[in-house]
């Protein structure tokens, strides 16, 4: 035999004949013994001495890992990093996490099973198994069963003896599959072109996506958070009979954190003291509440010129006037709580802290409009 052999293959025409041949061929130990059959043959795995597949164990471990990963991820997102109350449930609501845990577990398990089988056990990828080119395969895909003695590692296959052994074991026809020429390893140049091409493709598609989204904002990829069916304060709303978006509490109820106003009159309110410190945080909060609820009438500078001023019958107060600058904090608080003239009470819209924060912010607005020389230093 001049050329080197990859395998010597014997063909059999019944599973029983194949099974009978396995033991003597394995005993001869001429190489790796492998069988190729068009359908599963009971008992073949045992007689070939195939070891129990480790895939099951890997899948179990990875499935548990997947479930643990999903649980940990959801716990971190929902209870640690970005806790939002949903439906009054606890942040760590394991019940809600179970479906995702299940899916991730299945994903880990299936990918493990598939990849472990293909990469670890079937030693993929390789380009073309030597057996595929042989005429044996054509017979096997029809109705024949093949038993092959294959080259085991670096040891040369003794084709003559293998042929004799298969003949003795009852093979009907025997073929020698030649060892394919060793494939050339890819050159550094080819590898460079390949990696460069992949990198270029990634960069091009990334930049294209970025610029398309940037230049054509009519095609935003995800707008669910931006455009949501939401109703804003001060807006009209046909859902309710009175057309108001801002709801008053149901008669006879007290909302949590909105205690009834216990101060009898404005004189008593004069004695109230703003409990909040004048910190940047409080002013930011006051500014947010002021812009939402106050500025539509009193205007962004508290001058009484807001967006509603022209359309609105009554004239909103100019809070920069001396009268209002002389009001005590408690007095302003009292007006927020009770309302004044055409202004309704904002007791239900602003929380205790927001009211005092708005007053701090109003003081800042007043001082900014009436700045003295020493304020500039």
């Amino acid at each position, binding site marked *: 035999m001049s050329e080197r052999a990859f395998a010597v293959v014997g063909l059999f025409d019944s599973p029983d004949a194949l099974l009978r041949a396995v033991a003597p061929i394995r005993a001869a130990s001429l190489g790796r013994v492998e069988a190729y059959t068009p359908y599963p043959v*009971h*008992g073949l795995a045992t007689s070939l001495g195939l070891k129990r597949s480790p895939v*099951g164990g890997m899948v*179990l471990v990875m499935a548990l890992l997947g479930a643990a990963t999903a649980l940990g991820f959801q716990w971190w997102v929902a209870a640690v990093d970005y806790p939002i109350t949903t*439906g*009054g449930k606890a942040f760590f609501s394991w*019940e*809600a996490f*179970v*479906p995702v845990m299940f899916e991730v577990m299945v994903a880990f398990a299936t990918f493990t099973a598939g990849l472990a089988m293909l990469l670890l056990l079937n030693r993929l990828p390789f380009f073309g198994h030597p057996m595929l080119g042989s005429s044996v395969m054509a017979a096997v895909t029809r109705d024949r069963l093949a038993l092959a003695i294959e080259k085991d590692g670096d040891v040369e296959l003794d084709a003559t003896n293998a042929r004799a052994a298969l003949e003795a074991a009852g093979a009907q026809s025997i073929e020698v599959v030649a060892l394919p020429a060793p494939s050339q390893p890819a050159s550094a140049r080819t590898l460079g072109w390949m990696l460069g091409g992949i990198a270029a493709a990634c960069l091009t598609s990334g930049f294209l996506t970025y610029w398309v989204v940037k230049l054509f904002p009519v095609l935003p990829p995800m707008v669910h958070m931006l455009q949501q069916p939401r109703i804003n304060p001060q807006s009209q709303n046909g859902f309710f009979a009175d057309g108001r978006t801002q709801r008053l509490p149901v008669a006879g109820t007290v909302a949590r954190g909105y205690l009834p106003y216990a101060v009898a009159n404005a004189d008593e309110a004069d004695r109230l003291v703003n409990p909040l410190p004048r910190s940047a945080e409080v002013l930011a909060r006051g500014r947010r509440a002021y812009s939402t609820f106050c500025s539509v009438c009193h205007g962004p500078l508290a001058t009484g010129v807001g967006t509603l001023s022209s359309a609105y019958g009554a004239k909103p107060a100019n809070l920069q006037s001396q009268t209002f600058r002389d009001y005590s904090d408690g007095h302003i608080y009292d007006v927020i709580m009770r309302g004044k003239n055409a202004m309704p009470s904002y007791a239900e819209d602003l929380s205790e802290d927001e009211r005092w924060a708005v007053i701090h912010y109003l003081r800042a607005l007043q001082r900014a409009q009436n700045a003295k020389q020493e304020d500039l230093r």
Partner: protein
Amino acid sequence: MTRWTQMATVVGALGVAAALAFVEPQRFWANWLVWFLFVLTIGLGALFLVALEHLVAAQWSVPVRRCAERVSSLILPVVPIALIALLSLPTLFHKWTGAEAAHHPVVASKAVWLNVPFFAARLLLCLAAWLAGYRVLVSGSRRQDATSDPRFNVRARRFAPAFMALFAISITIVAFDWISSLDPEWYSDIFGVYVFAGTFLAGLSATALAVASLKQRGRLPEVNEHHLYNLGGLLFAFTVFWSYIGFAQYLLIWYADLPEEVVWYKLRIQGDWGAVALLLALIHFLVPFFALITGDAKSGLGRLRRVAALMLFAHLLDLYWLVFPSLGHGVLASWPELAFALMFVGGGLLWLGRAFGRGPDMPIGDPFLAQALEFRR
């Protein structure tokens, strides 16, 4: 062994009589209901298994089908047990049979379905359907032992789909009538499927337990590990199915958090019943899942027997957990419960002992038997 069982049954019966005299009637009838459902679900589950095998023309299962057929004979003693259970309607089901039902808007609206004459009629129709199924599938199979007439297989295969439909309707009726109507305000669409999962699991466990016990006594020598593997595989699959359905029902009710729905779970997962629920999750899902997860475990005789016995106990616990919290007490487990257990387990074993003592252990007249004994997975 039989003497001990007889003695236990007699002692249990005396205890049950004492319970009727001394224990509050609600508790007595709750016990009766649990055991009625336990015996029913085992027998009916086994009958479903038999019908399923005919439906799909399963061949592997022919050698173990006789065991399922014998277990399904529990349908016969269920008839008097069920008729006696009708006496529980005024006490145990007083929420819709009592006078107060008319004043409860939700319960009153269900009066079309939940009224005593229709309830009793439904029970009788269900019993008739099960007895018809038993007669065609089981008695016919027993007759085939003598005649070896293959026409039985054809008839059973034609009958099985009709029985499946009847079974699906009747098991849902059992779930809604006998369990869910204990709390008539509560509703859950999937509850019938949950009870079905438990029913099939009960029938399957009893069958597997019977096969394993017979084999350990040296009977059924032809049944090999491949048949056991399939039984174990079904058991494994349906523990997961039960858990999936049970959790799906819980998840939706937990998520929606509607008062009339959550109260059912509130009774069952808080306080002492919470411990029972945890135990249920443990022995109805986690333990059998990991006990049966490997291939060897599914075909191991001892392992299969132990898991099947555990599953029967878990199913009993499931029924106990479904029925007893409706009484509004904590966990009740004392001499009345023990007496009921002795009487029904003892009586059931005596009945099955008789059933397993008559005739051949396999359907020897089935034309597929020889082929089925050759089954390899």
